[in-house]
């Protein structure tokens, strides 16, 4: 019940905290994940390349 009252008194805060902040948080997490994945993949590819090079030597 208290949530209902609070919600009606502060609609904009409700919208922002509940919807927009969550949505943008999800975007942020997704961006972080994608960037992290790129970092990890690049690292792996570099490692593989170094391993190959040391094998050739």
């Amino acid at each position, binding site marked *: 019940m208290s949530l209902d009252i609070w919600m009606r008194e502060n609609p904009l805060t409700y919208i922002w905290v509940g*919807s927009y902040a969550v949505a943008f948080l999800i975007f942020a997490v997704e961006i972080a994940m994608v960037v992290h994945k790129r970092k990890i993949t690049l690292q*792996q590819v570099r490692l593989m390349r170094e391993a190959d090079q040391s094998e050739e030597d």
Partner: protein
Amino acid sequence: MAINWFKYSAPTTFYPLAGKLIPWFAISSLILFAVGLYIGFVVAPADAQQGEFYRIIFIHVPSSIISMFLYLIMAAYAALGLIFNTRLSSMMASAIAPTGALFAFISLWTGALWGKPMWGAWWVWDARLTSELILLFLYLGFIALHASIDDPRRADRAAALLAIVGSVNVPIIYFSVKWWNTLHQGSTIKYSGTSMHIAMQQAMFTMLAACWLYAIAIALTRVRSIILERERNSKWITELAEVKS
């Protein structure tokens, strides 16, 4: 003027191209988000019936629409990959899936938050809502199947078959739940004559465009990682500047 489309469907050329495009998509998405939010929250007036709560629409509708379209795009890419055996299309499909699932999730989440003040319940089992939930399950099924198969080629092909069968199911789900008592409102955007305030409309379209650009930028970034991962043994990868450094 013959453009060689196949040239761009090869990972070799697509990888640098995507790298060049991503910043543009990202920056314009950011700008449009700012503009859209400004119009939506400052310019547009409060709604007569719903008061301030209607402002959820500016994130809810774009994410709903995008989640549905992304599924079709994903299925189309997957089908291309399955039929013509083009590696890039399959990679695109698996790059799109997580974004689509997240948009479906955002749509559900924002819808639920909108439902509480409007309908007095976080969730009702009506047609729209249910089909959006099932869409989320279809995305998750695609992702789960892809993740449980280790051999990437088999994973691509199996997931593609699932995506195609799933896309046949999307309209069926949509219509089969149609006659349920529906709380969710129908289309507000019509091609001719609209009931919406002009600023509301502007805000919504701006946010829609911003979300699209965001989705594209994210999918392209993800597909670049996938290309790197899958093609790590080919020569052109080891000669990339970012790998050499």
